[in-house]
C-alpha cells in the first residue's frame, strides 16, 4: 500500500460535527470547538493516531470530513498555515459577531 500523503508536521485534526455541522478540532480528550485547545501532533506517530481517531469517529457517525491540517505554533497556540483553514478556526471574516471568533473572542 502506498504511504498516505499527510500535510507537513505539526498537524491538528479538523472535522465537522455531524448534527450541528460546526467545525471541530480533536482535543486531548474527544473534540473541541476552540482551536486553542486542539491537540497538536508533532511526529508521525501522533499524526497517525489523530487520523485514526478521525476515521473511527466518522464511522461512528459523530463527525464528517475529518482531515489533518498543518499548523504553526504561535504563542503556544496552533494556527493553520493555510488561510482557508485559518478561516475555519474563526468564522466569516466580515461578520466578527458570528462563529468561533465571537464565541471565544479569538
Amino acid at each position, binding site marked *: 500500500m502506498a504511504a498516505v500523503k499527510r500535510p507537513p508536521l505539526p498537524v491538528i485534526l479538523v472535522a465537522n460535527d*455531524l448534527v450541528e455541522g460546526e467545525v471541530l478540532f480533536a482535543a486531548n480528550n474527544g473534540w473541541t470547538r476552540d482551536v486553542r485547545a486542539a491537540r497538536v501532533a508533532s511526529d508521525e506517530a501522533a499524526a497517525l493516531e489523530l487520523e485514526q481517531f478521525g476515521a473511527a469517529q466518522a464511522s461512528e457517525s459523530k463527525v464528517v470530513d475529518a482531515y489533518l491540517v498543518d499548523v504553526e505554533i504561535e504563542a503556544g497556540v496552533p494556527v493553520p498555515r493555510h488561510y482557508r483553514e485559518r478561516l475555519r478556526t474563526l468564522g*466569516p471574516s466580515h461578520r466578527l459577531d*458570528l462563529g468561533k471568533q465571537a464565541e471565544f473572542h479569538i
Partner: protein
Amino acid sequence: MYAYDEFDRQIVRERVAQFASQVERRLDGSLTDEEFRPLRLKNGLYLQLHAYMLRVAIPYGALSARQLRQMALIAETYDRGYGHFTTRQNLQYNWPKLRDTPAILGLLADVDMHAIQTSGNCIRNTTTDCFAGAAFDEIEDPRPTAEWIRQWSTLHPEFDWLGRKFKIAVTASRQDRAVLKGHDVGVRIVRDADGETGYQIYIGGGLGRTPMEGKLIREFLPRAELLDYLEAILRVYNLEGRRDNKYKARIKILVHEIGLEKIRADVEAEYASIVAASPKADLREFHRIQAAFDAPEFADLPEVSRKLEQAQANDPDLALFVEHNLFRHKHKGYASLTISLKGIGQAPGDANAAQMRAVADLAEKYSFNELRVSHKQNLVLPHVRLDDVAEIFAVLKAHDLATANAELITDIICCPGLDYCALATARSIPLAQKLSRHFGDAATQKDIGELSIKISGCINACGHHHIGNIGILGLEKKGAESYQITIGGDAGDQFAIGELLGPGLPETHVPEALDKLIAVYRRERRQGETFIETYRRIGLAPYKTAFKEIADAFA
C-alpha cells in the same frame, strides 16, 4: 401568483417526510456519509466551511409577503437571523443544523415552498426577469412559462440524475434581464410574423470554468411544443453529454464539441420521435397555469405623480432613489421598485429577519402582495403606485434598505466566497464591501454611471464574474488570495465574456486598479456613453495599458 394545488402540496409534504426519515437514519448511523450526501444534496443541504447551508428554491424569484415572513421566521428560529439571496434568485441559510432541517422544510411546506432540486445534477430553479409581470417591454408575463417548466422538471424521472446540473432561464422582453445566453437553455418569448406567441431557444450557454455564450438552436417554436422540445434537448444531453469528467459534463461542452448543427439535428430528430409517439401537445395545462397569474387590478392613474414630484423636490435622497431604483411599469402611474441589498459596505444579497418582515409588509400594503428576487441579489416590489413611493422610501430608509444604487457601481454581484463556501479559493464579500465603500459616495457613483462589478470567489463563477463590465475572480496564488480582473463582460443582449487584463492582484490593490480603469473611461467617454459602450468603442488596449501600471508596480 401561482398557488399550489393538492398535487403540488402532496409532493412537497411527502418529500419532507422522506427527508426526515433519511436524516433520522443518518443520525442513528444506519446511513453512511457516502449514502447520505447525495440525498441531502437533493434537498438543498450542503456542508460548507463553517456549517451546513440550506438553499431554498424561490421559483423564478417570485415570493408572496407570507412566504418572505416565513423565511424571516426560519432565519430567526433556526439560523442566525439572516439569509442570503443568490444569483439564481434563491435564498441560502448559512447556519442550519442537520437535525433541524426537516422542521425547516416543514415550515417551508406550510407556505408552499421547498428546497427540492436546488442542488445536484438535475434541472435547477428556472429563473426569469425580476420585473416579470410588470415590465413595460415584455410581450407577456414570463412566469407562466417558467411555472410550466417548473412543473415539468420537478421530479422528472428521466432527468433526475443528469451528467451535471442544468439551468433554464426565461424572458419575455426584448432587453434580456435574465442572462439567457449564460444558461444551459435560454427561452425567449417572442411573436412571429403572424402574431403567434412562441419561443426562441438558446442552448449551451454557461459560465463556470469554461464560459460559453448560448447559441440559437430554434428561431421559433410554437408554444404548445415547448415541453416536448425541452424534453428532446434534455434527452440528447443526457445520452450524449460526457460523464467521464465533471468539468466537461455540462451541455455547453457537448454543444462545443459536436457543434451547433449536429446538436440541432440530434434534437430535432429526437423531437420528431417524441411527437410521433405521444398525443398532440396541447395548451390546457399552460392555460390553467396562466390563469393563476392574472394581472392584479391596476387602477387607472395619471402617468405622472404630482405627489411624488413634490416629495422629490423636498428630499434630494428620495429624488436620487427615484432616479435609480424605479423601473418603468407597463401600467401608467405604477413602477417596479428595486430594494437594494447592497447597502454601502454591506455584504451583497444579505437581509436580516427584520428587513425581510419590513419588505413583506411593504409588498402587502403597496404591491399586491408580490415580491421578486433578482439575479442581481436585490428584491423588487413589482407593482407600486408612484403616489406611494415616498412612503415606501421612508420605511426602507428606517430599515437600511433605501440605498439608491440599482445598476450603479456599488450594485455588486458577489458570491459567498471563502467566508462561507467550501469550494471557494478566495474571499469575495470583504472585497465587495471594500469596493462599495471606495465608490460609495453618491456623486462618484452618479458620475461613473451604469457599471456592473461581479465577483466570484472561485472559478465556478457563482458571482458571474465573466459577464461583469468589470469581473473579479478570487484565486489562490503562492498561498495567498489573489484577484484576477476582467473587463468588457456583458450579461445582456450584447452578451460578452470579459477579457483578462493581466496577472492577479492582492485584495489591497484592487480598488486602485479599478480607479485606473475608470479613469480611462472618464477620459475617453463621449456624451451619454456608459462604461461598457466606451469599452466596446475603444477596445481593450487602453485599459490594459492602464492596468499594467498597477500590475508592474506591485509585481
